[in-house]
């Protein structure tokens, strides 16, 4: 594998490429990258890494709305959490995002994953709805989440107990 030449790597099947470690793929990545190189790096280096399935901005479902302001301004003040994939749809001009959020990178909130202020796309299983001071919360054991629409996407924000 060490002597794996660039031309062989580019011609190799996807299956064998997935077997490469991230470091090997990185070492072989062609500077600038052609189309094949891109396929390879996403299959090998990125398949298990959170964030690579993030949807990038730009897809628009309208011609004339969404560019009244800059298409990318929507997320400027939102702190994106790189470990959490749930924020598909934040900067996404369309309704495809909420669907993709469920399919591409759903992040399940678990006790170990709980971090104040983080966004999750699904809750643990042991949750109850609690209404406090006019707001809705989910209490899951000792952890609390507040549900919100982030754009079209339902997300759960980890909060302190109300």
């Amino acid at each position: 594998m060490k002597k794996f030449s660039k031309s062989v790597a580019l011609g190799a099947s996807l299956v064998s490429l997935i077997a490469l470690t991230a470091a090997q793929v990185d070492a072989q990545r062609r500077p600038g990258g052609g189309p094949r190189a891109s396929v390879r790096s996403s299959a090998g280096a990125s398949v298990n890494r959170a964030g690579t399935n993030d949807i990038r901005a730009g897809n628009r479902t309208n011609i004339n709305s969404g560019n009244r302001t800059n298409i990318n301004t929507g997320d400027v003040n939102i702190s994106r959490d790189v470990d959490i994939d749930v924020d598909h749809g934040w900067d996404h001009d369309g309704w495809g995002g909420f669907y993709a959020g469920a399919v591409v990178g759903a992040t399940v909130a678990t006790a170990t994953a709980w971090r104040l202020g983080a966004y999750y796309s699904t809750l643990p299983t042991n949750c109850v709805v609690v209404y406090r001071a006019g707001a809705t919360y989910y209490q899951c054991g000792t952890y609390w989440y507040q549900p919100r629409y982030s754009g079209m996407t339902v997300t759960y924000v980890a909060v302190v107990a109300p």
Partner: protein
Amino acid sequence: MAALDRMGAALRKHPNMLVHTKLTVEDVLASGQKIQYGGSLDISARLPTKLRMVLKMGPSERQLYYDGANLTLYSPERNVYATAKAPATVREALAAAEDEYGLYIPLTDLFLWGNDPALPERITSAMAIGKETIGGNVCEHYALRQPFVDWQIWIREGENALPCKLVITTTSDPAMPQVTSIYDWQSEGVPDEAAFTFQPPQSAVRIEFQPLQSPVAASTGK
């Protein structure tokens, strides 16, 4: 451009509208890989103050209700909804939803054409391609360009110049994702006024919209 004017006029002649839309949407992953989704969007409206949309894509569904005072987004599969006060017309309400909550509601162009004189000014080129039959109607095909977007529209021949199909290509992304919608206009069956006000189903949980311009209020817990 005269064709667009005709279409705008035809759309504005139908303040009460009901249209079933077949929708294809493409997402672009950070890697540049494109993922395509198919779905449907049913739009009913009594303009300028009532709008209802039902969007279905894969396992997900969203219902949007606007009754001239409040805008509600409901997710049946999670049985949650959020309601916010909204301006007095569909156009203003959609713009506010986008600006305040990042709700990019698809195909809002349908409510803008023939209403907003700024739209034609953005177009930098336009050409007529030819005729095509879509859903039993003969439609004229046009291709247009404007900053960030190439678009193609098929418009019914004759007086009732409703859009038959629309393709939007986002040229600002090198992957050039496309959104395609094909329209099936219904001449009757527009819901009556009361149907535009959201009635929460039993046990539906009310949540909030996350405002776009405020930092995440995670630490308050309230």
